[in-house]
């Protein structure tokens, strides 16, 4: 290699690098907030930020799962469909009159099971996860309509609805769910051996294998986490809508990937954090909310969102090249 490579000196320099990495997206977030608050005086309010958080919840939680998958160097395009299946499973179990707790458990189990299927296909049949999840995205989307023949299913269970409607200590339950899941995912990633093995496997699969890490088991578990997170998102979404829609979560996988990538998660695996993903999800949420308040037509919103992602990723890649 180069004989003159600057060493990234000491721990302080490492921390500085980390901070610089977050500084970029935090600054983007602040800039967006400043822009929207200047153009709309209702933007900068507790009520609106509560609103943003609530809107961003589904994307953020799905993105936490997606972050694990991308860290491992894989991709999960089926999460949008899992969101819809989860809502439908919940509505059907409630419809059977089994009550809230069984419905919740079975919905989560369904999410994990769909993730298990993705994981086994990827790990054991050695198929690329991109292909596997393109296929299951379609399969799961089809499964949603099986019980109702394509019609939405109402879900008026009071506890189920309360998740989306009620507050605890003055903060909407949805936001509590996001915060708790953020902390759980963050701690698991940053401080457990499972998180460490995820980074190592994503960084160099073969070296991980030779170090005694069961790479196949890691893949399967992480796709299960992704499925589980998507199922939780599906519960929140159906709770807010009082129903399970067959087109729920459509193209949410792209928002989840965008949030992770905006947050600095590298698509080649091994690099990324939950903190970054949360900030990335907030950027997407603020963009959506701000543009809605400015009554920007939906198609312009799509264009702007795409451009923001391109710019953010470009800046990220360039800053890494400079350090490299």
């Amino acid at each position, binding site marked *: 290699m180069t004989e*003159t490579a*600057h060493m*990234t*000196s*000491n721990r302080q320099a490492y921390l500085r690098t980390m901070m610089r990495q977050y500084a970029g997206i935090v600054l983007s977030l602040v800039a967006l907030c400043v822009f929207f608050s200047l153009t709309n005086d209702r933007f900068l309010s507790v009520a609106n930020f509560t609103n943003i958080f609530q809107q961003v919840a589904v994307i953020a939680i799905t993105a936490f799962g997606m972050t694990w998958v991308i860290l491992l160097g894989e991709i999960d395009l089926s999460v949008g469909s899992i969101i819809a299946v989860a809502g439908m499973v919940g509505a059907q179990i409630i419809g059977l009159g089994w009550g809230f707790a069984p419905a919740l458990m079975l919905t989560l189990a369904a999410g994990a099971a769909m993730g298990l299927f993705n994981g086994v296909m990827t790990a054991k049949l050695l198929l690329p996860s991109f292909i596997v999840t393109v296929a299951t995205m379609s399969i799961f989307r089809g499964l949603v309509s099986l019980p109702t023949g394509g019609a939405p299913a109402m879900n008026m269970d009071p506890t189920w609805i309360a998740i989306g409607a009620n507050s605890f200590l003055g903060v909407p339950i949805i936001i509590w769910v996001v915060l708790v899941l953020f902390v759980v995912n963050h701690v698991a990633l940053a*401080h457990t051996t499972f998180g460490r093995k995820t980074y190592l496997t994503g960084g160099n699969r073969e*070296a991980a294998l030779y170090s*005694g890490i069961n790479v196949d088991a890691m893949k399967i578990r992480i796709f299960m986490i992704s499925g589980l997170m998507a199922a939780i998102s599906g519960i929140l979404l159906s709770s807010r809508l009082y129903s399970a829609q067959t087109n729920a979560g459509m193209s949410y996988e792209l928002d989840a990937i965008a949030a992770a990538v905006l947050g600095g998660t590298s698509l080649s695996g091994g690099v990324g954090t939950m903190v970054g993903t949360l900030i990335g999800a907030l950027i997407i949420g603020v963009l959506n909310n701000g543009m809605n308040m400015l009554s920007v037509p939906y198609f312009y919103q799509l264009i702007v969102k795409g451009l923001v992602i391109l710019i953010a990723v470009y800046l990220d890649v360039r800053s890494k090249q400079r350090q490299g």
Partner: protein
Amino acid sequence: MAEADIVLHMTGVRKTFGPVVALSNMDLTVRAGRVHTILGENGAGKSTLMKILAGVQLPSAGEITLDGAPFYPVTPQEAAARGLAIVFQELSLCNNLSVAANILATREPTRMGFISDRKVTARARALVHELGLPIDVTAQVGDLSIAQRQLVEIAKGLSHDAKVVIFDEPTSSLSDNEAEILFGIIERLKAHGKAVIYISHRMEEIMRLSDDITVVRDGEYVDTVAREDTTIDALIAMMVGREMAEIYPPRIGDVPDTQATPALRVTGLTQTGAFEDISFEVRQGEILGFFGLIGSGRSEVMNALFGTSMARGTVEIDGEPVTIRSAAEAIEHGIGFVTENRKEQGLVLSHALRPNVSMAALPRFSVRGFVRSRAERREALSEVERLGIRTNSIETVTGTLSGGNQQKVVLAKWLATRPRILILDEPTRGVDVGAKFEIYRIIRQLASEGTAILMVSSELPEVLGLSDRVLIMSEGRVSQTAPRDTLTPERVMTFATGHVQ
């Protein structure tokens, strides 16, 4: 020597990156029909020098002439057009393409604007044949061994006509047999009046091939000497700036008792198509050298022992039969495996030193699934100290370390598992001389502490210099196992090539 012989001439060449001086005041005079070796530790500035000549980087100051005309190539294409050919050390091949496509990459013969596969294959085949390389040009590069890929790299470098041919550590992944082919090629280039610039760490081959030797140290030109006027010891002294008392440190303590229960006993290990009926034992504190040419099955045996591939036969650890089906099980049984390719199987290059050191021993650094970062940090720091890893901190990204230091991190990773049996596969490949000696010292130290060591190497001096006993493999079988003092290099090569009288 007439001035007319001079093909390439450099004076006062300097290269800086910001405040960092990579090369200062480099002088070099390369003559036609001679092999000019550039010798220096990693970090001495050799690669920078090569990049300047190859048109990858421009010098910050200094004069370079090629055939008397100023030579400051801006692109590799320009350097090639001016008559410079380079055989790279870092493999720069596309694994998904055929050998022929790689050899003629960017210069493919075309028919009406389309690449003609037939012509590509024919031309590549002719070139490979002319060079005497044992490669099938239609094979996919991805299917070849590292050594064969290096041969492809050589063919690629020599696929266009050149006045100056640069070899950047071409033998670091070649066995002696393949190295001989390369030396033949170099002799022929010389006879055709080409100037050859040769970069290598291997003293024996440098003394054999070179006409002139230039030593660089810390980015500075030290001296140029004629081969006849110097010795290996003198060169090493110039290169590291201090006298090396001895290359291979002597064993510490006695050779272990041959009657003791072996730490590892392998009987009749067989993997169809790779190796057959491999039996050996190694005791605590013993270094068993594994010698064999590339393709003799040495690395395959090690992988089978480590559970990363399957084989039949019995394996006993401390007299107890064991079955090892995965790396995790091997590690649990106290086996460590310093793999052959540190970049592929050894390190996570994008990650810092600390997580790399702990990665094979995570159970030791965790409680109920949580990483004990303090214990992890302590271990990383103590390994850095013990192995003399030159790094600014344990948070330094391993990809930025030199080859020798990276190799020490791989060692550290396995030492962190506290192995009782340590497999070392080519432990000093692509490592500079200074780090090499340090790794030898560490291996000796480990043996004296009771670790049973299996050392696979294709460097004969290394095997003979360190091992207590040597096992020689030939074509997938054990052709001889003998105590070190009964062996000579000639005898070992006889067994390794299978020409036993």
